[in-house]
């Protein structure tokens, strides 16, 4: 038995029926809509449109330019005509978006060329040009993450292939089908970041991926394929870091200062792809799953297609979806329409029928301690929930600060196990919002 403290986690049903399905390309869509502003899992600041209505665009052509570390370049994902630059609202969030009517040709942008960087700065600029963002969910530009190498030496690169969320198999397929690009990505990081250790963390429920990648890298001592137990949230930043290296990012610290960065396996592949083909990020694999879909599948789709397009490619709907989720069953974000469009970091679209969305009304906390026992970070969600019921704002803030609600990553384990069906993760989210505002107000008040 190891003396190392183990991180609490959950055994979840996997619902990964699409794991054995190689991704298939959907028919060329009639049009795509590419938001340039912060959406659910898109980049955090706006990119600036550089095309005008009526312009002819080709696949891979830059149509919106990033402004800073929070945004990423947007490239046309089909060839055709810019029909509109319009306001787009999805799931209560507003964004400017570029609508491109496809000419059905998927004509490649003639200006694209294979980048040939010679040093770190040039390499980062190329990654920046690729428009690649973190595909694990946060959608933080890949170049911005890698730029940590300008300040501190990145000894270890942790490649996240855990894919612990139920339903999603997109990264699994990527690992099976793009081994050469994973290798290319690792070579690039070796060359430009000077990293010496590469750990590919994969949950044991993907034995074929573990086997293939172990075989591929058997002669490279720098690369280690690390099988991880299939528990949730194995792929969460802190959890993966701890389980793979035993390190912890302490409060106020950045992971890079530990000499480690974590990059999602698909982000690495998308980055590497740019250095092989010169094509920026214009398409991705997405898992379409759930009880309301006729034939769940993995699809290769241009960014900006609607959920409706995806459903059509999956044989249509079995019944009306009661819930549409971008992402997995634990942390995925609900969508309000089949017309919502797929973003760069949308790894799955889950459509649930009415039965799957039935909920039990919450009842009072019975103090069973399951939320505490399951929290990967060792927090006390029951205490947050109790504090949020207090009227006195100062008291509320004092408890929330002491119990450190801000550490919470909203993985949802607490809500999942709660026998009283209390929406604990949602309450944590509200508590984080409350404490942010409270701290801001008290700073301004001179306290």
């Amino acid at each position, binding site marked *: 038995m190891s003396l190392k403290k183990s991180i609490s986690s959950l055994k*979840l*049903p996997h619902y990964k029926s699409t794991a054995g399905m190689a991704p298939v390309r959907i028919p060329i869509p009639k049009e795509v809509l590419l938001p340039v502003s912060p959406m659910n899992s898109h980049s955090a600041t706006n990119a600036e449109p550089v095309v005008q209505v009526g312009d002819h665009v080709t696949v891979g052509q830059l149509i919106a330019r990033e402004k800073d570390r929070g945004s990423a370049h947007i490239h046309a994902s089909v060839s055709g005509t810019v029909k509109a630059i319009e306001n787009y609202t999805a*799931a*209560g969030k507003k964004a400017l978006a570029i609508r491109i009517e496809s000419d059905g040709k998927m004509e490649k942008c003639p200006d694209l060329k294979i980048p040939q960087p010679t040093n770190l700065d040039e390499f980062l600029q190329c990654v920046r040009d690729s428009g690649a963002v973190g595909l694990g969910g946060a959608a933080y530009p890949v170049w911005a993450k890698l730029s940590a190498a300008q300040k501190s030496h990145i000894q270890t690169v942790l490649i996240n292939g855990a894919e612990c969320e*139920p339903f999603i198999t997109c990264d699994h397929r990527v690992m099976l089908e793009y081994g050469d690009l994973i290798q290319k990505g690792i070579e690039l990081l070796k060359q430009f970041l000077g990293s010496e250790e590469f750990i590919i963390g994969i949950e044991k429920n993907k034995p074929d991926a573990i086997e293939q990648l172990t075989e591929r890298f058997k002669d490279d001592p720098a690369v280690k394929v690390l099988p991880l137990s299939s528990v949730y949230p194995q792929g969460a930043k*802190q959890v993966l870091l*701890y389980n793979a290296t035993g390190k*912890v*990012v*302490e*409060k106020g610290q950045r992971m890079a200062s530990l000499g480690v960065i974590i990059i999602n396996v698909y982000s690495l592949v998308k980055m590497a792809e740019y250095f092989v083909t010169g094509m920026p990020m214009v398409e991705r694999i997405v898992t379409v799953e759930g009880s309301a879909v006729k034939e769940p599948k993995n699809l290769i789709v241009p960014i900006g297609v609607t959920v409706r397009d995806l459903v059509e490619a999956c044989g249509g709907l079995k019944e*009306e*979806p*009661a*819930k*549409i*989720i971008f992402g997995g*069953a*634990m*942390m*995925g*974000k*609900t*969508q*309000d*329409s089949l017309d919502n469009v797929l973003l760069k970091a949308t790894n799955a679209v*889950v459509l*649930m029928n009415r039965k799957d*969305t039935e909920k*039990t009304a919450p*009842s*009072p*906390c*019975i*103090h*069973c*301690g*399951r939320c*505490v*026992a399951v*929290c*990967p*970070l*060792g*927090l*006390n969600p*029951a*205490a947050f929930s109790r504090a949020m019921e207090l009227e006195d704002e100062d008291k509320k803030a004092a408890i929330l600060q002491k119990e*450190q609600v801000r*550490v919470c990553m909203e993985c949802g384990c607490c*809500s*999942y*196990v*709660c*026998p*009283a*069906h209390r*929406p604990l*993760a*949602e309450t944590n989210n509200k508590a984080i919002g409350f404490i942010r505002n409270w701290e801001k107000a008290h700073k301004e008040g001179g306290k």
Partner: protein
Amino acid sequence: MEKPIMSSGPHIHSGASDRRIMLDVILALLPAAVAGVVIFGVKALWLILTCVIAAVLSEFLFNLICKKKQTVGDLSAVVTGLLLALNLSANVPLWQGALGSVFAIVLVKCLFGGIGRNFANPAITARVFLLMAFTSTVAGGTLPDGTTGATPLDLIGTEGAQLPTLLQMFLGQRGGAIGETCILALLIGFAYLLIRKVISWQVPVIFMGTVFVLSLIFGGFNTAVYELLAGGLVLGAVFMATDYTTTPITLRARMWFALGCGLITFVIRWFCALPEGVSYSILCMNILAPWLEKWTRRKPLGGV
């Protein structure tokens, strides 16, 4: 098309429910209840039914009168009534049992805000109340022949007294409360709760282990075994020191809770005039529970 549901994650649930947990506790108590009826006769059955019905009825009426949401469906009142009855000796008059249930549900639980809000264990508090109010009937153990008499714990302290054999102790052929004597039945219930993951093994094991080890040191092996099997130790350690609401929320604090229970039980049994201390020890530790949580708090991952 109807508007899709907008909600925050997670979008799936383990399926656990309060009612299922309570049902598991009831199922786990059934072997002890059946054994109690077999050992002490049908009057034990009447007392069990009386306590359960009185508990459910008083919660139902309290909610009705106070215009609160009806909560009897969560089965926690059944657990309270059942636990109280199993902690009483079979010779306790039915009306006293019923009164105990009303006390447990209304005064200890409902007035503090209902399920999850009480700070003291309702069944234990009610038992202690009955012990004070009706010492003559409640304090004495009922013997398997139906008479009221000395329990093994009374006898351990008495020179030359004839103690039941260890096998009799294990199967429950000795004086005591309805549900506390048959250790075999209690262990079956314990195993069931562990399999169903309703409780963790640490609390009962630490509680019983502390009493055993201290008795071993002070009285030797034979005494320690009797101390372990006698009185309400197993019943209390498995079913009442593991109550969710009145014990700390973290396992770490719960282990300290169990240690405290064991210490106090031993001290009362060994040094005080009272023959038994399980109930008092749990009640004392109930009060300490929030502090134990505070004292044993650990730094979260990535926090301070």
